[in-house]
Structures are given as structure tokens and as C-alpha cells.
């Protein structure tokens, strides 16, 4: 069994909002094998970004906090180490890129200086050497005229270029794990194709594991080795990408796959999942998808189903499969 880079166990992250405390990440467990790309997919408000922020320890203390669970990174529990120890991991062994490249860089500092920052922070290195490394990184992420780009300001570059710079920053200290929170959502489709292609090639070259967060099932199919589907703060289904797409088990995953219009496979009427995501503040113990589920049974309304593993590594949390397999 390949070693796992990251192991998340019963992670519980809560936010206090206008109408009470919500469990944005509700007892979530999963692991990321070395060199693999795991995709965390779900609609807005399902808690996928909260998972990433919990791992990085970037939850805004004023808004919420990680309440329970463990996050093992190379057998070290990130939730129980001292603040400065976690800080030394960030940007060094685990790094992150975000959705909005246009606002993710400091507008008054040059692009080059922002690439050099993590290198100078985490390694004992001269400024000259750091600059050389930065110029190399700019070339690595496929941007020509690296010298000119080094001295330019963020507002002078396009969205696509800025996202490449973010990737360069994230890779500056050759991290073991790269977390990408909706990296291509804000980009045009032709630029998105470039960035996904870049991420894929970088992953192969550097044997780097990646946690990619997205709401777009197309992106998942293109980049993922393993998929985790989240709904209302819970993991409802996970499995290897091919099995999950060919034989989705959870009604929500099936619904998502049928609801998305696909080029070349036009249907007359799109399947729709009725209703909308429930208010996380008023959730009672039940399957959170029960209100919108076609196969809803009485038990679905009373008890929350636990994760169940099948022989081909696929897992699902749904009462439909409870009595069938006895694993």
C-alpha cells in the first residue's frame, strides 16, 4: 500500500453565523496517497473549502474553528503541533493556491518579490540565489520573458498568468502536498485547459500529491485519481475516479452527473435534483440529502448513514446500500 501523505480523521470544523453555529465540516475522514490527485467535489456550501482551510490552519478565528478530529501529515497531527511548527510547514511542505488569482497577490509588491518570499522564509538562502530560483520557477510554469515578469506588478498580468505565478509560489519549496481550491473556476475555458494541463504535468514530474477542490465534474474526470463527493458538510461518496463515474452509487452523485449538460450528448430534458441545499443551522440527525432524494425512505429522515466500503474501494453513506452488503 503506497504511503499516505495526508490522513484526515473525523474532522469537525464549525462556524458561528447569523442563525447559529453550523458544522461546515461534519466528521469528515479521508486520506491522500503519495503522488495521487484526490478531488474534493461538491456544490457551494458543502464544506470543501473549509476542509482545505482546516488542513492549512487558515480558518479565521473570528468566524469559526476546528473543533475535533485529527489531520496526520507524515504521521504528525497538524491540529496538535505548536503554531510556529505548523507555520513552518505552510508554503514549505504543504502549499495552497486559490480561486481568484486577480486578488490573491499583493497589488503593491512586484510579482518576483512575492515568489521569493517563501523561499527566503523557509530556506537559508541568499537573495541572489532566491531570485535565480524564482526566475526558474517562472519558466517552469510556462511563462516566457521571465525577467520582465519578475519586475512587473500583479495588475499588469492576465488571470491565467497570475494563476501560473500562484503555482510558481506554491512550488517554490517543492511541497509534498499541493492544495488547489477551485484553481480554474475564475478562468476562461481555454485558459482553464492550460492550467489543468500544467498541474497534471507538474504532478507527474515532481511525484507530488494534490488535493484539488472543485464543483465541476468535468475537471474532476480530467485530473483526479480518487474522488470524494461532499454534501452539506459530510462525505457522502468516494472512490477511484473511473469506478465512481461509471457506477455512481449515491443518488446525489447520480443526480449531479445527470443534471450537467455534456457536449455531444444532448438530452431533451435535463434531470434535476429538486429543492435546494438545507440550512446547515437547522440540521437534525438524518441523511441531509433526504429532503431532495427520490429514493427517500423513513430511516433516511431519522438517522445519518455511516460510510460503507465496497470491494472495489468505492465507499458510500446511504441507507439504500445498508442491508445489501454485509461488509
Amino acid at each position, binding site marked *: 500500500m503506497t504511503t499516505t501523505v495526508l490522513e484526515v480523521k473525523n474532522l469537525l470544523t464549525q462556524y458561528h453565523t447569523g442563525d447559529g453555529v453550523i458544522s461546515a465540516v461534519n466528521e469528515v475522514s479521508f486520506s491522500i496517497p503519495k503522488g495521487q490527485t484526490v478531488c474534493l467535489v461538491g456544490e457551494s456550501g458543502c464544506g470543501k473549502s473549509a476542509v482545505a482551510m482546516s488542513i492549512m490552519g487558515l480558518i479565521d478565528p473570528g468566524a469559526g474553528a476546528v473543533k475535533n478530529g485529527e489531520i496526520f501529515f507524515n504521521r504528525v497531527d497538524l491540529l496538535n503541533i505548536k503554531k510556529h511548527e505548523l507555520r513552518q510547514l505552510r508554503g514549505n511542505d504543504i502549499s495552497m493556491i486559490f480561486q481568484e488569482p486577480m486578488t490573491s497577490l499583493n497589488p503593491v509588491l512586484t510579482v518576483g518579490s512575492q515568489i521569493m518570499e517563501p523561499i527566503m522564509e523557509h530556506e537559508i538562502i541568499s537573495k541572489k540565489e532566491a531570485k535565480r530560483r524564482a526566475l526558474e520557477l517562472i519558466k517552469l510554469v510556462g511563462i516566457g520573458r521571465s525577467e520582465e515578469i519578475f519586475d512587473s506588478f500583479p495588475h499588469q498580468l492576465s488571470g491565467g498568468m497570475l494563476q501560473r505565478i500562484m503555482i510558481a509560489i506554491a512550488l517554490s519549496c517543492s511541497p509534498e502536498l499541493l492544495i488547489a481550491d477551485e484553481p480554474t473556476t475564475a478562468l476562461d475555458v481555454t485558459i482553464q485547459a492550460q492550467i489543468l494541463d500544467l498541474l497534471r504535468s507538474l504532478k507527474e514530474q515532481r511525484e507530488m500529491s494534490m488535493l484539488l477542490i472543485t464543483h465541476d465534474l468535468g475537471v474532476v474526470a480530467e485530473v483526479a485519481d480518487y474522488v470524494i463527493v461532499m454534501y452539506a458538510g459530510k462525505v457522502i461518496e468516494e472512490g477511484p475516479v473511473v469506478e465512481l463515474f461509471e457506477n455512481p452509487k449515491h443518488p446525489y452523485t447520480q443526480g449531479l452527473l445527470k443534471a450537467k449538460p455534456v457536449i455531444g450528448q444532448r438530452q431533451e*430534458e435535463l*434531470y*434535476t435534483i*429538486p*429543492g435546494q441545499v438545507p440550512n446547515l443551522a437547522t440540521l437534525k440527525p438524518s441523511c441531509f440529502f433526504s*429532503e*431532495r432524494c427520490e429514493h427517500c425512505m423513513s430511516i433516511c429522515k431519522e438517522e445519518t448513514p455511516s460510510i460503507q466500503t465496497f470491494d472495489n474501494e468505492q465507499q458510500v453513506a446511504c441507507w439504500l446500500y445498508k442491508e445489501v452488503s454485509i461488509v
Partner: protein
Amino acid sequence: MENSAIIIKKIKKPTKTSLWGQVIRRLLKMKMPLLGLAFLLFIFMFSFIGPFFSPYINLGVNPTNINQPPSLEHWLGTDKLGRDVLTRLMLAGRISLLVGLGAMIMSVTIGGLLGIISGFYRGIVDQIFMRIADVLMTLPGLPLLFIMAAILSEWKVPTEYRIYIVMLMLSIVGWPGLARLVRSQILSLSERQFMQATEALGLRDVRKLFKHLLPNIIPLLIVSGTLSVGGAILSESTLSFFGLGVVPPDASWGNMITSANSLIDFQKRPWLWIPPGLAIFFTVISINLLGDGLRDAIDPNMKRR
């Protein structure tokens, strides 16, 4: 029943939620603004109803006990004409509060109106008003007030009209700031998609102004209006202190403090000039707390001025 979803959640009877109801509920949850509101209510009662309870209501000059320190009969002592300082403080409060509110109402009306017109109609109208506002804002505030006050005292305006003129003066200096704020709010609202929607729906200007723009301007007017009352009271007290605002025999907190100009009163009789100063201080601080609270209650993401 084709697939378009009907909202599953059963709605109880269609309650008529009101926006202002929510604002008040939010406001009641905030400690500091409530404290401000409580003090303001107290100071209003103190100034407008207080005098009826005081035995010295007619403020009779009483040469026998002049300059008495605070005592049981005169909680805040008496002044050089033997008048009861506490009662005079109450009556002075009436004038200061009236001037503050009056000035606010005038500058909000003038500033609001001109801001809306120039923000909505733009073109030359906008240029003219904004140039005027520029000129007024270029002149230093205080000297401008002094000049106007000087004109006032030269024209021998009868004292009872004087406070209304002071209100007018304060609003002449006050309206440009507000007009600028309202104008920029109108400009940013007009960029919003729901205003482009009124364009697409072909609604008449009247409906755009009163049904769409105005309701979205009210929060700004309320907050800026509240905060400007504090500013007006401070300016009035400064003018009156220099004998250019409210002049005796009328009393305002500002001109009560002028008693501090005589050396003996300043050193030996602090009860003459400290209470009015504190009255101004606590009133204005309460107004600012209330105004700040109102801003967060009405529109949490309104830009802080």
C-alpha cells in the same frame, strides 16, 4: 407534473417581514448604541421637561445669592446674576439640541436633494452643484462661519430669530459634504444591475427615483444625518463660545462656557462652565455611538465614513 421544482419547504402563513423591523431588532442587540440612545432620551427629557420641575423656572435674577457654590437648593449653584445654573443648563440644552437637529435637517434636505439631482441627472446640473460644493469645501469651515456670524451681528437680527440663522449657517457649511456622499452613492447604485433592470423594464424616472433609488439612499441619509447632529452641536457651541452663535440672554451650552473667560470664575467657580462642557461631550458621544450602531444595523456592509 414536469420536473421544474416547486419549493418543498411549506411556508407558514405569509408573514409580512418588514425591513425596518429587522433593523430595530439588530439595534436592540447592540450595547453601546443603546447606551447612546438611553443618554440621548435622558438629555432630551432633562432639557425639554426638566425645567417644569425646577422651582426657578422663570430664571428670575436674584441679586441676593450670586455665585453660590452647589448646594441643596441650587444643585449646581448660581451664576453672577444669581440665576440657578441647573435650570439654565436645562434651557440651554433645549437651544443646543434644537440648533443641532435643525442644522441636520436643513443640511440633509439641501445636501440630499442636490446630491440626488446631480447624481441622477448629471450633465450641467451636476457640474454646477458640484462646483459650488467644491468652492464651499475649499474655504476653511470656521472662518466661513465667523464671517457669516459677523454679518449676522451687524444686521442686528432680533435674538429670538438668531438660533434659526445659526442653524442656516451650519447647514450652509454642512450640506456640501453630504451632497458629495449622496451623489457618489447614487452613481454607484446606478451601476448596479437592478437599476439597469429598471432601464430594461422602461420604468419612468419618477418610479426609478422614488421606488428604487430613494429607498436605497435612506440608510445613508439616516446615518450621516445622525452623525451630523453631533458635528452641528460642536460647531454651535464653538460659535457661541466666541459670542458669534447664540448670544445672551438666550442660553446655549456653548455660551454658558464663556463664563470661564473671567479668571476668577475659571479658577474658583468651575460649576459655572464645566457642566455645560460635559453636557456637550456626553450628548455628542451618545450621538456618535447611536449613529455608528445605526450604520451596522441598517446596512452591515455600508462603507464606514
